[in-house]
């Protein structure tokens, strides 16, 4: 069974540009999460989808970040316009229904904003 996949693996953009990250969760997982790790610090929660609905977006930094999960399958995270402080590694995770089900992480997208 394929794990969580993310695209691209790396992205280098200039400040002010737009970038869209994609996450394909494990097939059948209703829960999808975005996290990010900035500058070697701890991994922080961004938001949580249950199917196509945003369950919790309390971790989204500001309105330059927009996440979607149309159809309840893959998800995209768009940053527009990107700022220097957005650089980091963006992880996606998915899990089955239920609170304590293991979250499986993708390999991450390393975003560098110059």
């Amino acid at each position, binding site marked *: 069974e394929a794990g*969580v996949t993310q695209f691209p693996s790396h992205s280098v953009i200039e400040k002010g540009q737009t970038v869209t990250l994609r996450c394909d969760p494990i097939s059948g997982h209703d*829960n999808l*999460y975005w*996290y990010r790790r900035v500058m070697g*610090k*701890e*991994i*922080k*929660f961004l938001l*949580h989808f249950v199917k196509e609905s945003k*369950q*919790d977006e309390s*971790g989204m930094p500001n309105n330059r970040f927009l996440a979607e999960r149309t159809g309840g399958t893959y998800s995209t995270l768009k940053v527009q316009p990107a700022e220097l402080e957005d650089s980091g590694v963006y*992880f996606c*995770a998915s*899990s089955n229904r239920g*609170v*304590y089900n*293991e*979250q*499986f*992480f*993708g*390999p*991450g997208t390393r975003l560098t904003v110059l």
Partner: protein
Amino acid sequence: GESVGLHLPTLSVQEGDNSIINCAYSNSASDYFIWYKQESGKGPQFIIDIRSNMDKRQGQRVTVLLNKTVKHLSLQIAATQPGDSAVYFCAEIPSNDYKLSFGAGTTVTVRA
């Protein structure tokens, strides 16, 4: 009184020795705790978990200890191997929540 293990950002261990990684968590309402291992270029990978109604749980070469009184979590790795070199994160989930709150991470380097 109880001693609380200090969280260290890095840990260097001789191959074959045991490793102990410490983590202090902040939310007394947290109900579920997980240790993740992150290798270079990969996402965090589940190692072992423990619920708040337990003090200790063992897996293959790993043991997690939970001290709710001082809000402390530790991961013990027996007979550390070169493949154990990675960044280790503790994470907590409060009751009735889904999102993981991660600790700062400890980079473990295994010396041959």
